[in-house]
């Protein structure tokens, strides 16, 4: 158990000394997961709205499918993206494999189902009279959407929190398409907090893993405080 205490001390040390390696890894984690969350939000919200407010055959099945994809293992997502972007894959020419971009793509795909699903339930929770009121006030489709989202902002932002949490904490996809590379230049490296944690763990450096885990949670705390602030506005 002393590893946990060690982990805390180590985390404190890493943070107060601005350990350059850890700072770079943390920054990369933030950038990648943040970008993935934003992209996923931009897709999931309109998609979720279209599904929730639309009436079409197979709607229930689609919702079921989305819910099923909550269980998509990160490794499978990683593999699929890997096959698509590896040199011999259809998008191989983009040379995305083992780049931060690839990791963003993988995390976006990974969190899309859950964010779409949670968007659907957030929107379905809005009082039907609110929806009718917006329509009756002459909202265009876009105005309607924006205002329903405002009403559902608490739940929508909760879904963003879930998405971000899943993105920044996943490792399977990140390692497969990113490769956990520690190169000397920031841009060529793909080591993020979770892949670094995996590595430290596989090397048996438990305290170091825990320290990195704490750094990750501190980042998550910051993001969540920001989200909560917006939620309660």
């Amino acid at each position, binding site marked *: 158990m002393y590893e946990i205490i060690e982990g805390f001390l180590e985390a404190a040390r890493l943070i107060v000394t601005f350990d350059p390696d850890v700072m770079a890894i943390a920054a990369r984690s933030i950038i990648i997961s943040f970008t993935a969350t934003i992209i996923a939000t931009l897709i999931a919200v309109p998609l979720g709205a279209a599904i929730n407010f639309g009436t079409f055959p197979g709607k229930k099945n689609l919702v079921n499918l989305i819910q099923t994809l909550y269980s998509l293992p990160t490794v499978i997502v990683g593999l699929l993206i890997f096959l698509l972007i590896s040199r011999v894959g259809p998008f191989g020419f983009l040379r995305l494999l083992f780049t931060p971009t690839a990791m963003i793509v993988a995390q976006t795909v990974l969190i899309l189902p859950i964010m779409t699903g949670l968007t659907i339930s957030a929107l379905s929770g809005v*009082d039907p*009279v*609110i929806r*009718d*009121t*917006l*329509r*009756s*006030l*002459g*909202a*265009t489709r876009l*105005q309607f959407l924006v*205002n329903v989202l*405002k*009403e559902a902002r608490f739940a929508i932002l909760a879904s963003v929190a879930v998405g971000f949490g899943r993105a920044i904490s996943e490792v399977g996809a990140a390692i497969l398409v990113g490769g956990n590379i520690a190169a000397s230049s920031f841009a060529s490296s793909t080591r993020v907090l979770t892949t670094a944690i995996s590595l430290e763990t596989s090397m048996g450096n438990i305290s170091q893993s825990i320290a990195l885990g704490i750094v990750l949670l501190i980042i998550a705390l910051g993001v969540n405080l920001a989200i909560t602030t917006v939620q309660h506005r």
Partner: protein
Amino acid sequence: MIEFDNVSKNFGDTRVLTGVTGEVNRGEIFTVIGPSGAGKSTLLRLIDLLDVPAGGAIRINGLDIHADKEKSLSVRRMMGMVFQKPAVFNTTVTENVAVGLRFRGVSKSETRKLTEDALAMVGLAGYGERRARTLSGGEMQRVALARAMVIEPEILLLDEPTANLDPVSVAMIEDLVVRINRDLGTTVIFSTHDMYQGQRLAHRIGVLMDGAFAQVGTPREVFTLPASREVARFVGIENIVEGVVVEREDGTAVVDAGGVRVRARSPFPRGERVSLCIRSEEIRIAPAIRGRRVSDGNILPGTVTAVVPRGPFSRVTVDCGFPLSSVLSWKAAEDLDIREGGRVEVVFAAESVHAVRQG
């Protein structure tokens, strides 16, 4: 201007509207009254394009509003609606009222001004910064009213807009509706369960019953000449007596109601089964004076069976073979020394009796 052409609507197996036909004129205040569950809200929602009729059409200025999805937005923007259970957006009162203006791209300063005015109009000046969710029932309803009115719609749809309000607020809102209708020429359609409100405000009233208009007419027509027994009951005519026409001479008839003979205005031939509708306000109660006779009116002797307070009045029920109720001021009731069990005479004119054919 707004035309209902055999509009029908059902939810699953529940047939709510079976064939609503009628017209609302431009600039008119039209009231829809009808029992709970008659489909008043459903009809208003159909007009506001919030639902689609199962059959028939609603036309505004000749345009079938449900036919062309492309035009939905522009049709809707002609209208403002206040829902029966209004919901407020989870933001400030000001923001709530401003929503419709923002949708229409009205400038910030203009929006601020209009919003303030609208809040003042509904008596909520100074409430602007309150969070709308914390308002009382009546306050919310007024916010919803301000929100619908501020966009100055051509057609204002109000679904029981004063249901949660006290009389002072009701009077204020009614004034407002009348003013908007008069000053801006807004067509107003509202549903209410307060018949007197319908009458106070409406140019015309539609009585929605069993999925269709049982009667459409001016308040006076509806209240004094109900088209059926059901309408009569609904508009508060307390005395409805069944009988058969036994005599008839130009315009008046004698109707036999279980042995008691009642003179009534009636166009119906002998032998016709009719319901006689007599407003309790048209009935006077007099001390019993035996042997009095009249040729033209009705004087029926009877026994007082109940005296019930009602507003500043007393409602007195007299058994004259069938029960008849009258409304007296407390003072009059005292002067006449009316008490349960006492003998009195019930006096009313033949013109006060409205006969309808039994359906």
